[in-house]
């Protein structure tokens, strides 16, 4: 068979398979991300069937997937929301960083993977999945609850933290020393502040630059701008993903709403490729040795995220049941943990086992998170009741 024909058949089979997995995921009420990872694991390196000939496409497509994931994250929040969110949640946000980055770093050190891997794994365990959490809160009808603004503002803080973290990570992975690393941090903080000010004051001009009443022109301009900004950011060592995130923040108002509507299907497509490629590049035979550590991380970081949410909600004067709901809602990890691990593994600066550990961890957390959010109320109610009956 012709080379192109094989590639098309393989790609078609992959997408069709993902479609079936995605349908299954929403039907059983979990995020499709873990299923895409499993799909990727089943094929490729060490999997059942090696896929060959589609790497040039999938490699670039998964890069675009990361850019689109972060662009849409930026579009989701307006600059004003980010600033007020930061003002309201900085103390809870710092507790979040301290409690949830530490377990990842600790396990990496325990495994003797070195400081860079420690920073990578810290990011993987820190960042909650805003995609999964927003979906779960909506599905469970909790958007009007008093703990929900607390949960959402923690997510806002995490996303801003990503904008500082990713450039540091990029610099470290590129092998830049401490001084160079500090330099890029300076550049990125400067860039973030600049973009926030720009977006607050002159957001409509940035929006006008990409906006067009014609959907075709709009899509091309938007995608073009995103890839340009991402590419330039990558060249400046500030990480392509952060460039796209900042562009997303700068685009505001109705342009942002339209852009989200237009790009969501594209994001879903390319992000799916990204998750599959991550799974493909992970050797399933590397999972059993790291499984105990993945389980340890699951137990530790489920607890620490729960405590984070509990404390943040308590600070806002929310009762115990609401605190428990806030804690459980935050547990899910997903797409951004894989983005971080993907950056690290792609650079080749960390051990391949990190991919296996991250995959296993995210697989578990993306499933445990929504389940925890669902069962927290009955479980907490049962705990309250049994304590009450023990007293009498």
């Amino acid at each position: 068979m012709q080379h192109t024909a094989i590639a098309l058949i393989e790609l078609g089979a992959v997408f069709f398979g993902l479609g079936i997995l995605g349908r299954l995921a929403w039907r059983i009420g979990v995020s499709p991300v873990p299923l895409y990872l499993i799909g990727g694991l089943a094929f490729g390196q060490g999997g059942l069937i090696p896929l060959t000939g589609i790497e040039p496409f999938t490699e670039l497509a998964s890069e675009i997937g990361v850019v689109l994931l972060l662009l849409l994250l930026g579009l989701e929040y307006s600059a004003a929301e980010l600033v007020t969110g930061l003002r309201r949640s900085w103390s809870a946000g710092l507790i979040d960083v301290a409690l949830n980055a530490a377990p990842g770093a600790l396990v990496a050190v325990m495994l003797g993977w070195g400081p860079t891997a420690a920073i990578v794994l810290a990011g993987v365990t820190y960042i909650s999945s805003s995609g999964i959490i927003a979906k779960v809160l909506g599905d469970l009808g909790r958007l009007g609850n008093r703990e929900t603004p607390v949960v959402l503002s923690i997510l806002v803080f995490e996303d801003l933290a990503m904008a500082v973290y990713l450039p540091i990570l990029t610099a470290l992975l590129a092998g830049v020393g401490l001084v160079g690393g500090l330099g890029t941090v300076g550049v990125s903080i400067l860039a973030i502040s600049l973009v926030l000010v720009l977006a607050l004051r002159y957001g409509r001009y940035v929006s006008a630059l990409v906006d067009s009443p014609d959907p075709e022109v709009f899509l091309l301009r938007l995608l073009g701008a995103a890839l340009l900004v991402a590419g330039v950011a990558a060249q400046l060592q500030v990480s392509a993903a952060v460039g796209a995130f900042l562009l997303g923040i700068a685009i505001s108002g109705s342009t942002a709403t339209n852009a989200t509507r237009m790009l969501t299907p594209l994001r879903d497509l390319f992000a799916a490729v990204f998750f599959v490629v991550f799974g493909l590049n992970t050797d399933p035979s590397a999972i059993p040795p790291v499984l105990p550590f993945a389980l340890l991380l699951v137990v530790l970081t489920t607890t620490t995220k729960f405590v984070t949410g509990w404390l943040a909600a308590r600070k806002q004067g929310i009762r115990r049941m609401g605190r428990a709901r806030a804690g459980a809602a935050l547990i899910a990890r997903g797409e951004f943990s894989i983005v971080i691990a993907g950056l690290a593994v792609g650079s080749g600066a960390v051990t391949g086992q990190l991919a296996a550990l991250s995959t296993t961890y995210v697989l578990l957390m993306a499933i445990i998170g929504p389940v925890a959010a669902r069962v927290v109320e009955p479980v907490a109610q049962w705990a309250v009741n049994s304590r009450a009956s023990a007293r009498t």
Partner: protein
Amino acid sequence: MTPLPGLGTQQEFTTGSGRRIGVITYRDGRMELIVSDPRDPDKICAATDLNGEETSTLANLLGAPQLVGKLTEQQREVTGVTTWQLPLVPGSPYDGRALGETEMRTRTSVSIVAVIRDGSVHPSPRPDFVFAGDDLVVMVGTAEGLRAANEILENG
């Protein structure tokens, strides 16, 4: 107002009985009415989507008595003038006829300031406004005039 980053905003108040009632306004303009759980005020127990028309109907259902109250309040200063809200029963002689045909002001010196129909307020109705059964007619006048007006609406 509480921002819900990425979704929209939420506005709410707490009632005397300790329940929160609020409205979530989503980015796309959709609105949702929320009511908190009596056992756990942090949690909502009821939520319903409302489109533009439904929100104004709800606002009028709740606001109509307020309108009459406000008018009464304003007219208290003018001695001898009060506001009444009278139903136009189905089958009244004016059911299906225009407001002008009642010749209300000429006959009783009473002014019809608003008509409330199906929860929506029609303020300052013109003489060509056509009455229907179950309309609530808001009128301003002297007590005597209003009694006469009631008589006209009922018996012609």
